[in-house]
């Protein structure tokens, strides 16, 4: 009996081991393209940027010298860099806050039934599909010194008195406001869709139970919905923050960092220094400053997300 069992179990173990091994091989094969892609398009350029930031390499030139940390010292000493660093944080956090708050409002509105919901949904998603270069052309008219529709609305509403006028792209503060507005407009659809998915995934029974227990709107949002949506919310915020932190398209298309370098973010400044200015080493040094912040953000957000999953 014993020997029979032994004979029958041995081939099973062998087959299981083979399947596990082939599973592992299959896993490696399936992962390889993604890993190769990341290595070639992320790791290699990153290492190259790190290397270039330690040199005086310039665009189009075949020669360079190692300059140690000189590029970093120069960059830190530059008031334009410090302003761009501050702008990057302002740009990221203000726009993400606005996106999450407004996305929440829109997602809640889209959960209700109303006439024209399909059209509303289409219009909300439209900015996500519009090429940013074309959209910015439209925004350039919206911020035009004479024809700005925002200014005319503010005038009609009485916000702007006689002789008062906003010159959106000619003023450092208003220039940043304009950049943030376009970015919020651009990111809002993505955030809305994610939040809508999160809200619809909460069972109705939970909401009904909270209503029976007398939970108000804010209690329901902060004590039930947000904790239940935390993993999804974390992904949305992480994606939004990383995307915003590294984005230069709106700044480049709208102001090119002007007036007088007051609206630069790190990514646009790196482009100005490294490509337009031809100082590749310095441009790389500016870009490298994005890395530690992004790493800290990623670790923080992923840990928060993981904790939420465990709970």
């Amino acid at each position, binding site marked *: 009996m014993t020997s029979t069992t032994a004979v029958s179990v041995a081939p099973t173990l062998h087959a299981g081991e083979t399947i596990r091994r082939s599973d592992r091989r299959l896993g490696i094969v399936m992962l390889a393209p993604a890993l190769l892609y990341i*290595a*070639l398009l992320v790791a*290699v350029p990153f*290492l*190259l940027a790190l*290397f270039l930031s330690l*040199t005086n*390499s*310039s*665009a*189009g*030139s*075949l*020669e*360079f*010298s*190692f*300059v140690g940390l000189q590029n970093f010292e*120069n960059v830190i000493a*530059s*008031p334009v860099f410090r302003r761009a660093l501050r702008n990057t944080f302002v740009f990221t956090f203000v726009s993400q806050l606005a996106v999450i708050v407004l996305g929440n409002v829109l997602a809640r509105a889209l959960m209700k039934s109303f006439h024209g919901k399909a059209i509303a949904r289409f219009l909300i998603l439209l900015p996500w599909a519009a090429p940013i270069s074309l959209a910015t052309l439209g925004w*350039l008219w919206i911020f*035009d*010194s*004479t*024809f700005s529709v925002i200014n005319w609305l503010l005038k009609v509403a009485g916000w702007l008195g006689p002789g008062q*006028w906003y*010159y*959106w*792209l*000619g*003023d*450092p503060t208003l*220039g940043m406001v304009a950049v943030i507005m376009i970015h919020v407009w651009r990111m809002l659809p993505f955030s809305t869709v994610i939040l809508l998915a999160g809200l619809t995934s909460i069972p109705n029974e939970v909401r009904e139970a909270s209503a029976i227990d007398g939970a108000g709107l804010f209690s329901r949002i902060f004590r039930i919905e947000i904790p239940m949506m935390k993993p999804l919310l974390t992904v949305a915020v992480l994606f939004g923050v990383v995307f915003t932190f590294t984005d230069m398209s709106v700044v480049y298309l709208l*102001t*090119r*960092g*002007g*007036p*007088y*370098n007051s609206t630069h973010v790190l990514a646009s400044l790196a*482009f*100005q*220094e490294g*490509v*337009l*200015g*031809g*100082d590749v080493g310095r441009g790389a040094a500016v870009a490298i400053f994005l890395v530690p912040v992004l790493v800290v953000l990623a670790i923080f957000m992923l840990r928060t997300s993981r904790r939420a999953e465990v709970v």
Partner: protein
Amino acid sequence: MARYHGFEGSTSRRDFLKLAAAGAASASAGATWRPRKADAKPAQITFMRESSYVKEFDEHFKNVLIPRYQAETGIKIVYEIIAAGGSAVPRTVAIVESKAPVDAGWVQQEWLYREGLLDVSDIAKDVGKQQGGWYSEIEGLSVWEGKWRSVPFGNIGQCMVYRRDWFDQAGITAFPDTWEEFLEAGTKLKKAGHPYGMSMGHGFADNNSWLLPLLWGFGGQVVAKDGKTITLDSAETARAVDYVRKLYKDACLDDCVGWLDPANNKAFLTSQISCTNNAMSILISAKRDLPDMGKVTDHAPNPKGPKGRFHSFVPVTHGIFSHTPDPAAAKHFLRWLMDPKQVAAWYRSAQMYHAPFLHAYDKDEEWNKEPRFKPYQKVLETGKLVSWPAPADRRAGEVVNKWIVIDMFAKACTGTPTKTVIADGVAGLKQIYG
């Protein structure tokens, strides 16, 4: 400072790039960019150019020149067109850095990547001899270390563009001859509701084209002729800064400190401003799309300062990328393009929008067809490269592309004291010139 000597004694960053990209080499297995045999005729030549604000210019190239070359040689010309307004420089730098499959093209701001351009001295010298000789100022851009790295084409002239009807209504019958008169006229016009719109943002042409000539006219300079000594901090610069601050306050639309290049065209064509500094594209657009405005739009040279009248060049040149697999074929095409049989009609197709750097066209009949374009021809006589009086080298290009001088003026306009803006400008220059 240790010199880098990695990879078998080479000092080339390319070698590092090659090593770093070794893993990606297999991905290029299917690429069509391969060296050809010296005696083989290429199937095609890729020519890159920024789109022109004058559409007839591009149309002439596409519909006349390309088919003609193809019919004569059997070689296909692939025309890679890049949107105007600032994307050509990054694209060209990327072509040189990555050795992208482009043979030749329009090489704006070549000081950034001259090492990546082929010696075209033979073509430039022959074309010059054949067509009256080159304007000497442009040689400072095209000739580098004794060799022509590009063949000059033309200057996109920048002059004052103004509304003659509004100037007349304000009692200004002739365009101001000096910067002081320009301020006086602007003050009157702004009071009448027709301010100037003088670009001071991060554009590539319409800002430098009046601020640098103004600085030079007041006697200021950014860097001395030796290309080393920073000369920006001077009483002349301070006077120029004070003047621009006053001009902005008394005569300009507030918004113009943040304007990119298209903004003043838009403002002029929508009657927001009475004067700006621009190429002749505003008048060309007005005549085509807004005939009434076309009748009352006029041009004038930049006003003169205590040290004279200046203009700055926005030069267009053509070059051949040194990584082209077939230099002879690319050279043949460029030589053919610059032959009078081709190039004369090409210049005329855009109504001399690209004022030829060749003296043979100084008295070309095309200049007489629209007398209002004549100031743009005169720009060639008083025009300087933006680096002037310093050499047009990489560092001068960095100054331009980091908008150091432009930002000095723009900051002054919004209230920063003169001493501070000049000190900021000098600090920026020191980071570049050491």
